[in-house]
């Protein structure tokens, strides 16, 4: 299990959000989540320009085992998606907190970030899940 970067915030459903220097929110899934899903084989990305609501499905990742909805941690507009995942979905398995990011949102309400778990609270959540 890799370290959870301290600058990330999390949904209980294992998505992470990172506030970039330019104020945009980068979103992915946790290393714990990719481990649970196993080898990823397909990612259905949202369309750039589409609107997402916090806590609603914005993308889908499929492993050999199962399909999982990816919820957006914040509301707003999708401004960029990680096209690399079209050909290399396994990037999420290899680097969930880095190159395996999924999409970037321009948040309409930054206060929604305060609702998310910080890295310590998320670490505790997955520890309890394992037991």
């Amino acid at each position, binding site marked *: 299990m890799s370290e959870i970067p301290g600058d990330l915030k999390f949904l209980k459903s294992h998505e992470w959000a990172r506030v970039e220097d330019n104020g945009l929110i980068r979103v992915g899934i946790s290393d714990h989540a990719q*481990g649970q899903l*196993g*080898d990823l*084989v*397909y990612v*259905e990305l949202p369309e750039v320009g589409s609107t997402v609501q916090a806590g609603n499905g914005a993308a*889908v990742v*499929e492993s*050999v*085992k*199962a*399909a999982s909805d990816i919820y957006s941690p914040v509301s707003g507009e999708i401004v960029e998606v990680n096209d690399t995942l*079209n050909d290399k979905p396994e990037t999420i*398995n290899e680097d969930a907190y880095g190159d395996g990011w999924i999409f970037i949102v321009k948040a309409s309400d930054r206060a929604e970030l305060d609702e998310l778990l910080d890295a310590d609270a998320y670490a505790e959540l997955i520890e309890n899940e394992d037991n």
Partner: protein
Amino acid sequence: MTEKTVLNATHRALGARMVDFGGWDMPISYGSQIEEHHAVRRDAGMFDVSHMTVVDLHGARTREFLRHLVANSVDKLKVQGKALYTCMLNEQGGVIDDLIVYFLGDEFFRLVVNAATRAKDLAWIAQQAKAFHVEVKERPDFAMIAVQGPSARAKVIGLLHEVDRARIEKLGRFAAAAAQGPHGAPLFIARTGYTGEDGFEIMVPEEQAVTFWNELAAAGVAPCGLGARDTLRLEAGMNLYGQDMDDSVSPWEAGLAWTIALDEGRDFIGRKALEAQKAAGAMRTMVGLVLDEKGVLRHGQKVLTDRGEGEILSGSFAPTLNKAVAFARIPSGVSGDVRVDIRGREVPVRVVKFPFVRDGKPCEGI
């Protein structure tokens, strides 16, 4: 209470991700499920299948009993050690389970049935066996390890006692024989499998299973989990009980017509129902589907055809093909375009004959 095979601690020590499978705590993978799949297609992998149920049948009328119990004909078993794949049906022609029958002696046959159906199978077999005075004896004292892949046989044979090697080397497909393994372990070796590759399924006494597993690992056989086992058997066109057929589905509609023997005068359970269904014409048929676009076919997805709706049975990403394939049960006589509803999107698929993969290579037209 979850049951554990004798190899449970070994799986955990290897870092396996464990899941509940039909009441058993089993490894789904030890790392990458896709790499385990490729290990079996390209070299050799092994699976702990000790959760499967071994049942020995003894008695003077055992063959006669099996003529009645199962839909395939045990009279095809003429040489000691030969094996037969068959369904065991209820009176309605529904599949109670699929199993392998080994002919081990004039008064001795061995069955291997599924783990998830153990209780109902044992109850059914015992009930039917009474009239034939056949003794039904479960063999929980066996562990079972499947070693599969193009180099699987050579790696196993290298571990056998020298006197047994030539004989096991010559063992034909779908036949079994006894042999002596490492440290004198008495093995029951069958040239069968559930992956579409050559290899063996080996019964070993529980107390010698961990040592045997470790010897196989040292010989370069990769531990593989149930995840890889599922994608391998799907590519190989092999049914999974509970997903591709069950008590309410007849073999006609499950791609298992080849396992039904309507030999003259044999009164097996379910025969009348099967004959009536055959006369009426099967309503549905099991086909293979290939998705050429991105996406994954999954169990339960709706299939749309010009003759009405069907559904996906087993469906998954197929690592050898690098795309998704599935079994689907659809109305008979479909000719036009076929689509699958994936999360509200109708995606075109191709209807194909299975298997999808044999001996490491995609089959023609896949």
